[in-house]
């Protein structure tokens, strides 16, 4: 049985707590937000690298986004990833779930020989978790979502993915190739490896592919390939609250709370 080849899908997102709203334009204001690797994707990378630690093989990173993603993704090289494939082309921009999953699937086809794709649970900007199943469908591969542990049987080409479900846990088994999404915070991503840290600066470990480099239908990528469109933005309605302060000594506050709770419950 040859070594297993894993691709981790990663994305760079602005730190959610630093994204504001420009109320004059009603648009998201990302100007002051620093970027980072989408934190759930770090859990996917860690799980991939831990499988490599046990079974050998190779882990690559696949991403789709503008060129500024590259320096952020390079951290993965010093953690132990082999190579970065960045799908970067203005034509890919403005993609919704359908176009994004299509383009990523073509990227995986173009890498070739991939056994397992790992994704973060969700992106911190979109937070919808619908990319992994969509990606699996484009590839016609099996899927297991939200796992916190994977046991690989290299000889049988099978994986067992453990996941929490309402009220308990289950273990799902599927054959490779497969797409698996990894539960956020299910592991502790490793630090950069000191001995290979210079890989971060290595020119030849990053491959950038544009529209003409991978086989994509022009009509199915980016904004053109996206059935959904944003038709408007609105201020989230906020409900008027009383904002009544209970004050006094701790005992008085407690008595006030007891009276309030007896009234409300």
């Amino acid at each position: 049985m040859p070594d297993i080849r894993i691709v981790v899908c990663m994305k760079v997102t602005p730190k959610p707590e630093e994204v504001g709203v420009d109320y004059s334009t009603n648009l998201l204001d990302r100007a002051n937000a620093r970027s980072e690797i989408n934190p759930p994707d770090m859990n996917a990378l860690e799980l991939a690298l831990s499988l490599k630690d046990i079974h050998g093989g190779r882990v690559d990173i696949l991403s789709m986004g503008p060129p500024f993603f590259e320096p952020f993704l390079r951290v993965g090289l010093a953690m132990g990833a082999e190579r970065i494939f960045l799908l970067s082309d203005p034509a890919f921009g403005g993609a919704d779930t359908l176009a994004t999953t299509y383009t990523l699937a073509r990227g995986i086809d173009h890498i070739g020989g991939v056994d397992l794709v790992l994704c973060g649970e969700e992106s911190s900007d979109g937070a919808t978790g619908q990319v992994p199943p969509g990606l699996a469908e484009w590839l016609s591969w099996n899927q297991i979502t939200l796992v916190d542990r994977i046991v690989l049987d290299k000889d049988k080409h099978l994986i067992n993915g453990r996941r929490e479900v309402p009220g308990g846990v289950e273990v799902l088994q599927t054959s490779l190739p497969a797409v698996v999404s990894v539960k956020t915070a299910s592991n502790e991503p490793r630090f950069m490896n000191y001995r290979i840290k210079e890989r971060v600066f290595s020119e030849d470990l990053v491959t950038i592919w544009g529209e003409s480099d991978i086989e994509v239908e022009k009509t199915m990528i980016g904004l053109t390939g996206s059935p959904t469109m944003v038709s408007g933005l609105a201020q989230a309605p906020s409900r008027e609250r009383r904002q009544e302060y209970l004050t006094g000594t701790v005992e008085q506050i407690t008595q006030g709370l007891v009276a309030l709770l007896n009234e409300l419950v």
Partner: protein
Amino acid sequence: MVASLYSKESEKKDICIFLEHRGAGLAPVSLELLSKGRELASHAGWTLTGLLLGYQVAGAASEAFDYGADRVILIDNPKLELFTVDAYTHVAYQIIDVYRPGIFLLGATMDGRDLAGRLAVRLRTGLNADCTGLQLDVEEGRLVCEVSGFGGGILALIEMEKHRPQMATVRPGVFLPSKMSAVKSGQLIRPEIEIPDEIIRTRVVERVIGEGVDLTQAPVLVAGGRGVEGNFEMLNDLAQLLDGDYGATRPPVDDGFVERERQIGQTGVVCRPNLVIVCGISGAFHFVVGIQEAETIIAINSDRDAPIFEYADYCIVGDVHEIIPLLIKALREDRVAERPA
């Protein structure tokens, strides 16, 4: 642009809801979606259909009628007893191809999301995930989905022009369930659909299910954040006294103090309790979205500038580690005094 399986021109003026069952009945999120679907359908003069997949679940169909469905399409098959994304996608795809609803809605549950993500690609249509509001533009037959942007209090409205069905997932707890006032019957359709064994590629090798936690159904919630410093036993004690349940923001969940099912907010559950007591939580927007529909909010925080106070009806500037134990003690004494000897 790639065309969807069927176009707007060949759609039926029908809203179809993916029904999830739990035990003998329908899951709360399915009742919520049926109720919202009924409202939209009645307003536009469309029909409302429930799609029920499972094994020996026919009993749940009548509940769908109680919540406004005009008809239920039931596929009762042992191969659908446990959810597998392969079998469910296979069946849902065929039903949608035949019945061609203009709109297809699912709960944003684990299974609902797995199915929606896969099915939308198979149908070559768009998917609006985790919607916080739905409107139906009657003239255009267009579903307008409200989706909350990250971190901020901004909502994006998203629509689909040509692709059908218009698919969306909605979090549990976003809409209110409402039972029809009059007894309503409907049409039960039971199509035959073959599910070849080889299409099911995942198999459950182990499953240990205990009592599940469902915060969306708790009338009273006690929620804790970093400021609780992991003392959720204290919050549980208070919640028990109030016949409620306890939850948390993301950090205590990430730190392993609380199960993930108890996480409230944008990446957790959205709740609408009668009362929520918010303890040691600063009030970041991604948490607040999970409780902002509560009837009454009480906030306790030692930082008087904490944003949470802007969202609260009753504000207490103080130390939760001091106030909550006193409150528990006082409530217990109260209960003892009330109880006749």
